[in-house]
């Protein structure tokens, strides 16, 4: 099959993911023995993300036609796994448990304007969805099928850009500047549109230089379209929940201020 991933890449990603999950669990356990709170749900989300990533790169798609199989891998590696991994807030955990010297370096990095620029939602979206358009609307995909290195590079980009997009959009971990809700909604809308348009256009015409069957293209196109919907919906739900929580905090602050104002007025002689 032409779209199969190079074996060294699969082995490297699987090893790194398993080690990453073990390190995460160890760090979370240390935090809890220290007496700090760290919800178990985060451990579960991070490990689920790791599992999806490993499943994605091992390509267990059986008899699925090549382009559909490729699309399922993309959905796992570039969208679902990054979302789950980012929901585990790995950077926050690292900042709390790493040795002091490493922590200092990390803090400097998360406060630096240049290091955090790629995580700004519009930039991250451009890297992620721009890359996707390049892959499917230039001969890049057909060329990468004949070059294991390029194929590896493409998949590394898909994973990193996916992580960056979820990381920047959800802004769960502490970085220099938290983007506003309006910007995040606009980026999500634009990215969702770009994704849906690209998915539908693949229904009619496959990537240049490839010769996938019509049935394969149709299935892959719909996998991309509806799979993208599911992840978009999840991202939107997380951002909306963050907004709801922050409004609640503002409301409680206002209520407290009014309350203390009223008692002050009542006690005044």
């Amino acid at each position, binding site marked *: 099959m032409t779209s199969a991933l190079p074996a060294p890449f699969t082995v490297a990603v699987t090893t790194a993911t398993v080690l990453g999950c073990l390190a995460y669990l160890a760090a979370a356990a240390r935090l809890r023995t220290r007496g700090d709170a760290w919800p178990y749900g985060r451990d579960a989300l991070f490990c689920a993300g790791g599992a999806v990533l490993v499943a994605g790169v091992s390509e267990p798609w059986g008899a699925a036609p090549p382009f559909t199989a490729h699309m399922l891998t993309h959905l796992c590696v570039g969208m679902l796994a990054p979302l789950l991994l980012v929901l585990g807030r790995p950077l926050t955990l690292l900042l709390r448990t790493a040795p002091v010297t490493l922590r200092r370096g990390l803090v400097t990095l998360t406060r630096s304007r240049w290091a955090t620029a790629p995580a700004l939602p519009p930039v991250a979206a451009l890297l992620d969805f721009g890359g996707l358009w390049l892959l499917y609307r230039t001969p890049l995909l057909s060329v990468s099928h004949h070059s294991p290195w390029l194929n590896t590079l493409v998949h590394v980009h898909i994973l990193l850009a996916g992580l960056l997009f979820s990381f920047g959009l959800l802004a769960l971990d502490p970085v220099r500047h938290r983007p506003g809700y309006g910007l995040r*909604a606009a980026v*999500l*809308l634009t*990215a*969702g*549109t*770009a*994704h*849906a*348009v690209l998915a*539908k*256009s693949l*229904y*009619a015409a496959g990537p240049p230089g490839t010769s996938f069957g019509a049935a394969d293209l*149709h299935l892959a*196109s*719909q996998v991309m*379209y509806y799979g993208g*919907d599911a992840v*978009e*919906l999840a991202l*939107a*739900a997380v951002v*909306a*929940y963050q*907004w*709801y929580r922050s*409004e*609640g905090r503002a*409301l*409680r602050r206002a*209520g*407290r201020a009014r*309350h203390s104002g009223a008692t002050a007025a009542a006690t005044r002689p």
Partner: protein
Amino acid sequence: MRSVLSGVLTGIGTAAFIDETVFHQLLHWHHFYDKSTTDVGLVSDGLFHAGSWLAMVAGLVLYADVRRRGTLVPRKWWSGLCLGLGGFQLYDGTFQHKGLGIHQIRYGVDLAPYDWTWNGIAVLLLVAGALLLVRASRRPPRAASRTEPRTPSRTR
């Protein structure tokens, strides 16, 4: 005002959801892509497809927030819902199906009755929504819905 906005957003999301599940997935009347679509049509379709999911999420979370504040006006919310439902369906039925030719309601049949029913329902929903909104604005809202914002019981 937030009641209406929440209703409109939820309405758009619901209309898109019904469109997708009933007509695309269950009845298979609509086609995913019938290849007569223009590029503008594809972009418009993508924008509305992505936007309607966001509208659904935003509408629901706004509803929760308005309720928490104790400023929900149910009549306004329902009027917004009708406006959102009707607005989306009319846009879909006229501009997207006809103007941009994204896809038709059904294939291999005389389209006229389908188009009239589709757009007729849309107009009825819009009228109902507008009437509800006028009535809700004219009548003073019930006392309970315009009192002090309820402070959440959880205080820290």
